[in-house]
């Protein structure tokens, strides 16, 4: 990587943030004017939402399993193994469900978006699209953005549910807890604020996954090597953003709901 002066470096970064902000803004507002590509939105919902189901279910389920297993060790010291359900439900719904789902979907779809749009960029397909009178942001970015935000919300609910189910399986079969007690404690542990917190995060994560993936795709240059670089950058940046925004949203929600 060639060395550049701090001034040039700063200008490049600020220009990149500006480009990202403009792309994100257009991607959001395009839905309020025509033409709208509903068929593309539904195709992306299927690809992003249904396509990500297996990894989200597996990740959520085994996270719930391991959470129950690990927490039981600590809870045993206080004679509170019966509270495993509380711990699993709170951890899954408030934190692990949204974050892990975001990270898994980011790994699968940010990279997919960056490589697909990046390949189109380096083979002049984006220019061809513009030459044929279609706005690539409207056709490619907006459907991916709305599909990701919408589907990640429901994928997070699925991850939460299977995580709690995984915890139940371990609690009943390995820890000897009563299933009814486990689910009762899980239910009692959660309040409305926890659910709101857990389901607000995927809205931000979905936005980050789609806009970061598409941004790096649309900025791709340098042939197939450039596509590979864009793909890697998209996953890394989206994952880091998800974690940072998770912290900010958590802090804001704790401020609002007090827990």
């Amino acid at each position, binding site marked *: 990587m060639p060395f550049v002066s701090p001034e040039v470096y700063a200008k490049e970064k600020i220009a990149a943030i500006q480009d990202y902000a403009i792309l994100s803004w257009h991607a959001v507002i395009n839905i309020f004017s025509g*033409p709208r590509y509903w068929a593309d939105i539904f195709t992306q919902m299927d690809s992003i939402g249904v396509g990500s189901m297996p990894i989200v279910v597996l990740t959520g389920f085994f996270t719930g399993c391991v959470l129950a297993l690990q927490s039981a060790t600590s809870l045993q010291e206080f004679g509170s193994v019966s509270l495993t359900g509380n711990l699993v439900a709170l951890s899954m719904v408030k934190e692990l469900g949204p974050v892990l789902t975001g990270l898994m979907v980011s790994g699968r779809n940010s990279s997919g978006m960056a490589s697909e749009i990046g390949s*189109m960029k380096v*083979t*002049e*397909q984006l*220019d*061809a*699209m*513009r*030459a*044929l*009178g*279609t*706005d690539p942001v409207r056709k490619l970015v907006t459907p991916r953005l709305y599909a990701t935000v919408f589907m990640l919300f429901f994928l997070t609910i699925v991850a939460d549910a299977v995580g709690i189910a995984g915890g139940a399986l371990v609690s009943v079969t390995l820890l000897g807890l009563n299933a009814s007690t486990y689910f009762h404690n899980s239910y009692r542990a959660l309040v409305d604020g926890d659910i709101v917190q857990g389901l607000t995060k995927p809205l931000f994560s979905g936005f980050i996954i789609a806009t970061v993936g598409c941004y790096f795709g649309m900025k791709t240059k340098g042939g197939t090597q450039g596509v590979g670089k864009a793909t890697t950058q998209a996953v890394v940046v989206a994952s880091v953003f998800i974690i940072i925004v998770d912290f900010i949203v958590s802090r804001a929600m704790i401020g609002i709901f007090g827990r």
Partner: protein
Amino acid sequence: MPSEIAIAAVAPNAAPTMEPIVVFENVSIAFDKNSVLEDVSFSVHRGETRIILGPAGGGKSVLMKLTNGLIKPDSGTIRVFGEEVSAMREADLFKLRARIGMVFQESALFDSLSVEDNVAYRLHEEHVPEAEAHARVVEALKFVELEQAIDKFPAEISGGMRRRVSIARAIVSNPDLILYDSPTGGLDPITSTTIIALVVKQRDVSHTTSLMITHRLQDAFLLARNHFNQQTGQMEPIANGGVDDSTKFLVLNDGKIVFDGTTEELVHSTDPWLKEYLA
């Protein structure tokens, strides 16, 4: 083989003015401080076929993208159909581009769409009824003699066939201006001649204004010295070694115009660089 789509291209959008279709005035553009085009001025009139010649890296493709508004110049003005594309918003450019067909250097076909969907792309965007869109796609593919490939995907056809599909995609909406960006680049001589024959056919049957980039002199002179015989359906040399009056040349070198004129003027030019280039 006369083509209805090509004939139809002449009439509907023709404005009653004799203003040039494309006008460049003192256009300059640089990338990363490297000047690509410098103070370029020229105009292309209705029905004219302008061949853009020059060594690789001379700014030809940039000039083509500027014409279509895909990139903006650093300075100067570009007018297409009387509208200043260099100052238009992207949303307005989409409407203007409905009148412009473009054939990209590497075809730029959408690889996830079939040949039919590629050619029909603009028709689908304009919500043309499916039956009519299919009929127009078949007609455009017949023009490029590729109707048998309608169900194939770009990856399943050869490079030459992809260029022909790209030409079909450019002409399917009966544009008033066609931009050919190196349509013969990287092709073997026989396939190149087939592509040039299609350009000649489009020129002589529909008289569509066009800009064609090439760095192959033989293709440029093939275009200038041949015409399309609608009776035989073949490209033939113009009698007595004549040249097509509507075909003119623009030669670029290092981002500057070194020649702007007719075929005769080009071959009789005394410019030392030009003589060496043409030799």
